[in-house]
């Protein structure tokens, strides 16, 4: 009898727990609707990997909201054209080693004016290795950067010696080398000004940056793993005025869940398309699709000193060109990517200023099986290569079908066994093998620009100064002629003229092919039917959130 009572009590207890658990959540359920009364844009997001300190953000989960909250000196329009935002003027000296920056009257969201000091102190904070900011390297061209890298002997508040405050509205930047692209670099999030209150408690600011917003939106709340809300900034007078009342970045566990919510009208916009929908999203009557060539370029790199493929040798050049011409990029984009990629014709992107689709040497990026075979045989006459050339890629990024197709295409043209694939399970392992220089064949590379300039694609990826682990030149390509052109362009104040020189640099790359461009990832995504206007993508392949409206 006693035991029966126990069992009954246990059952009743469990039932009560369940009921109370569900009951309490039902009352809290109304918050799910999140700002549906006003015209907030509900946007797809992932949980930021760091907090909202602009210089410490290195992925889109934090990057998207940060871009909307923190204005910089310059901003870019949808066609990558730069114009002054907080800056009144940005003036380089004649060889682009020193910049004088004057500021407009601008306010932080707590009402404090944005002063020159808010820039110099913020930049120094991020550059200072003691503060362990992921964006530190962006400041390496500023004079005094090297002195801030010995973390053991720093306190964290040391300043970059190259930054000088002239008055409240003016400061100067001395660079350690000429850099005509610096005027564009300052448009990157890491260069945002920070309010005085930030330096009192950077940690608290990262969790709740509502005092330091200068952009079209002001931070409202961040519920971890749920959403990040921001409302329209009423005091904002810049180039990107908000056409809606705010943005609610909803954090999703997967893009498939988000897509289903867009179909059902519970979410307004996402900047990607799940693999399962990539074939059908443009015809899906429940969503508004977007799909155009974007700023991200996908390439693969063959290490420069790899045997039989060495840059600067005749054999290497022949083989690289042969491999490149053996790949049917058009079929790859249509069949494997179902139209979500556009065949590459250069080393930058169609969204980059100074882009041209008709540079001399771009025929090396076109499918030409006969020529490819001819060049390959010529190379074999110099020195026999038994292969295979392995293509390494990370499996977690969904690149398998792409590299299977690349290897197939090469094997079909150049003969069986020339190419093979080497899948590596995770991005981490994959990047480790690259940074430790353990790759013994070709490997997947790609680039998403930090600011829209050919410099960001070319110098960061192919200059000698970025090789040997000092930058993103993962193949350690070194060509004095190319370096000289890059330096020349960097010292050319006029953007048009500089872009012409960058194009000459690209011609060298098209001939030597340190990396082989495959395609530009399309900016693609979907919006719900509720979005009435303003759904487009910017130079970062991200939706133009501030332009979207549901009215």
């Amino acid at each position, binding site marked *: 009898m006693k035991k029966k009572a126990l069992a009954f009590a246990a059952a009743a207890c469990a039932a009560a727990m369940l009921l109370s658990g569900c009951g309490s*959540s039902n009352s809290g*359920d109304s918050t799910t609707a999140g700002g549906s009364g006003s015209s907030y844009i509900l946007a797809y997001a992932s949980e930021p*990997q*760091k*907090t909202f300190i602009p210089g410490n953000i290195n992925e889109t989960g934090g990057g998207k909201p940060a871009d909307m909250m923190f204005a910089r000196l310059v901003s870019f329009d949808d066609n990558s054209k730069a114009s002054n935002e907080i800056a009144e003027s940005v003036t380089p000296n004649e060889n682009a080693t020193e910049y004088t920056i004057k500021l407009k009257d601008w306010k932080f969201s707590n009402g404090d004016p944005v002063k020159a000091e808010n820039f110099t102190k913020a930049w120094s904070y991020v550059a200072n*290795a003691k503060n362990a900011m992921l964006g530190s390297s962006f400041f390496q061209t500023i004079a005094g950067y090297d002195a801030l890298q010995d973390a053991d002997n720093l306190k964290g508040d040391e300043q970059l010696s190259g930054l000088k405050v002239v008055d409240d509205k003016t400061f100067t930047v001395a660079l350690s080398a000429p850099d005509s692209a610096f005027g564009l670099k300052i448009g990157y999030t890491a260069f945002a000004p920070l309010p005085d209150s930030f330096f009192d408690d950077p940690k608290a600011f990262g969790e709740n940056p509502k005092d330091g917003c200068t952009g079209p939106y002001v931070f409202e709340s961040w519920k971890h793993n749920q959403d990040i809300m921001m409302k329209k900034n009423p005091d904002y007078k810049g180039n990107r005025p908000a056409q809606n009342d705010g943005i609610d970045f909803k954090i999703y566990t997967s893009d498939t*869940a988000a897509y*289903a919510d867009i179909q059902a009208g519970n979410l307004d916009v996402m900047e990607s398309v799940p693999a399962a929908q990539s074939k059908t999203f443009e015809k899906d009557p429940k969503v508004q699709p977007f799909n155009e060539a974007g700023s991200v370029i996908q390439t693969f790199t063959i290490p420069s000193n790899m045997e039989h493929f060495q840059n600067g040798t005749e054999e290497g050049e022949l083989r690289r060109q042969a491999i490149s011409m053996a790949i049917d990029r058009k079929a790859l984009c249509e069949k494997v990517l179902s139209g979500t990629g556009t065949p590459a014709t250069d080393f930058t992107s169609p969204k980059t200023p100074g882009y041209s689709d008709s540079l001399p040497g771009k025929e090396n990026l076109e499918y030409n099986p006969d020529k490819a075979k001819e060049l390959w045989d010529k190379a074999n006459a110099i020195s026999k290569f038994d292969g295979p050339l392995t293509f390494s890629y990370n499996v977690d990024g969904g690149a398998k079908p792409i590299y299977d197709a690349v290897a197939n295409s090469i094997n079909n043209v150049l003969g069986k066994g020339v190419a093979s694939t080497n899948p590596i399970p995770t991005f*981490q392992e994959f990047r*480790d093998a690259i940074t430790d220089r353990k790759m013994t064949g070709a490997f997947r590379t790609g680039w998403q620009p930090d600011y829209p300039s050919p410099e960001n694609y070319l110098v960061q990826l192919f200059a000698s100064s970025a090789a040997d682990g000092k930058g993103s030149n993962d193949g350690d390509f070194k060509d004095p002629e190319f370096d000289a052109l890059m330096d020349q362009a960097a010292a050319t104040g006029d953007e048009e003229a500089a872009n012409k020189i960058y194009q000459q640099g690209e011609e060298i790359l098209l001939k030597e092919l340190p990396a082989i461009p495959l395609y530009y990832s399309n900016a693609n995504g979907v919006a719900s039917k509720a979005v009435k206007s303003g759904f487009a993508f910017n130079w970062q392949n991200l939706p133009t959130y501030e332009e979207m409206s549901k009215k």
Partner: protein
Amino acid sequence: MGKYLLRRILQVIPVVLGTTLLVYALVFALPGDPVKAMFGDKPVNEAVAAQIRAEYNLDKPFIVQYLLFLRNALTLDFGNTFAGQPVIDEIARAFPVTIKLALMAFVFEAIFGVVFGIISGFKKGKWYDTVILIVSLLLISVPTFVTGFLGQYLLGVKWSILPVTAGNNPGFIDLLLPAMVLGSVSMAYIIRLTRAEISSNIAEDYVRTARAKGMSNRSVMLRHVLRNSLIPVVTYLGQDIAALMGGAMISETIFNIHGVGWLTYQSILKGEGNLVVSIVTLLMLIFVVCNLIVDMLYAVLDPRIRYA
């Protein structure tokens, strides 16, 4: 009874130590450097990377890292994630929703599993027995993500009967479909288990004896057949509740539930050792407690079982 309980609880200590060490070692052995990965395809600033490694003790040998973790865990300080969030906060966010989901799935599979199992078992060979059998077979053989996506598309997107995703602070209705998907496979197993147990127990001697003594069919079935048939079912259910909590990853991902399964997966991907170990330890404790309750319930179901 008290002594028995105490002994069982003391057994937990070596189990916790062993599990944490094993899981910590596994996370440590994961290839790839989590700090380098933070820089993405940007150049790694070694001075910055060294600072981050020092902050998370990643620059120390494995056994030192583990002992530091244990020492801090004793003071209930489980450390921070790489995003700077206290691990304990992450867990506090993830567990409630998963507990809710797992309990709903548990009740779903227990009720429907046992009820359909009983119907099937007592009415073997009837047409509805066949239907139940076929459906349960189907649920076992179709992977959860297929049932999940199908359910989401049909019930959510197409017919708008149930919410498409659960979202933030999910309530009963939001979690109904995910819970059904989560519990569907176990439900199918329980149906088959109950059915098999009942049909074998019906043929036992004691049932014939009970009938021969003139007991009514109703009380033979309820007091003898059913009670005996439920012991393996209770065992299964008890272990399943812990499995439901840790194994909800697929339904959590499909239905946008930021629960334990999803968090575990994310933390493994990011190489967050402290977080993975903390979650697994908690899950293990839940598992141990569930097992203990099941063992206690045996005594209720079967008077022959006694604990001293």
